[in-house]
């Protein structure tokens, strides 16, 4: 099971970060988006090549209004 933004997901091991973004309707050229896997930043340049492993914890973040 891979956790996506704090919830169990049907993302499978071996999927790329880019594919996960696709599931969230986030285009790979979206501005103001960042991804962390298991508490480490996955740079944009690695979104296509970074493959998720079983039990990975993925956070997909975007710009939000805030002080």
């Amino acid at each position, binding site marked *: 099971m891979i956790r996506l933004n704090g919830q169990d997901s049907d993302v499978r091991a071996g999927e790329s970060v880019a594919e996960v973004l696709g599931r969230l309707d986030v285009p790979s050229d979206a501005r*103001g988006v960042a*991804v962390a896997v298991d508490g480490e930043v996955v740079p944009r340049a690695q979104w296509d090549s970074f493959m998720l492993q079983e039990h990975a914890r993925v956070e997909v973040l*975007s710009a939000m*209004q805030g*002080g």
Partner: protein
Amino acid sequence: MRDAIDTSLAGGTANGAPTTAAPAAGVDQLKIADRTFGSRLLLGTGGFPSLAILGEAIAASGCEIVTVALRRVDPGARGSLIDVLADAGVELLPNTAGCHTARDAVLTARLAREAFETPWVKLEVIGDEDTLLPDAPELLRAAEQLVDEGFVVLPYTTDDPVLARRLADVGCAAVMPLGSPIGSGMGIRNPYNIALIREAVDVPVVLDAGVGTASDAALAMELGCDAVMAASAISRAQDPVRMARAMRAAVQAGRLARAAGRIPRRLYASASTPNEGLPEFP
């Protein structure tokens, strides 16, 4: 004795002279790290009723720097904050709001650098849920690490001159002391400390948090702050765009007043009309 009893904190040294050289028109720029800005008002983007009003408020405020946060993607979100901010032509200052440890704040800053392509970060490490006051040891730890990693760090800090100096010493590009708790609108609870912070550090001081209305922003500038950040005071005002305009004017007024050098406070009156030539009536 009718001497001045208190050479007020608001503006000027003990002899009443301004501590800041009077700025020439048009060249009084705010300098943080290697950037200069014409506006001394920073705007927080949180709490606006809509993105359209946010855009209008940015324009009305004249600000050049706005804060943004990072949160989990909401697939149902409508409108793009990033587009609004890009259209406004403002610099983004990502924050680490919601972080309670140095570790989380550092990771959030790294993510923000990736998301917004800027090494600038408004560092927030919160230590208490009710007051949202900063956690000083964690804040200092995070600041030191982020500076080491090449970030331009602007820490949200308590109104403690010693902590402000420690933050500047580890390489922060500015310090952002609170006037009072975030969103409280309680103004500047300890003007004395804010004035001391201005004396304690060589980096810009940006009064952050607690501003409730325009006079709070003016006071911050009169105390010697280099800039003011406002979020809720504008975004949650009944008319945010009008309040943005008010804050802009207040920051400019306070800056001018500081440079002009206010008169000392006196216990008794000091006639402004001379007594010489006063007629005597039978």
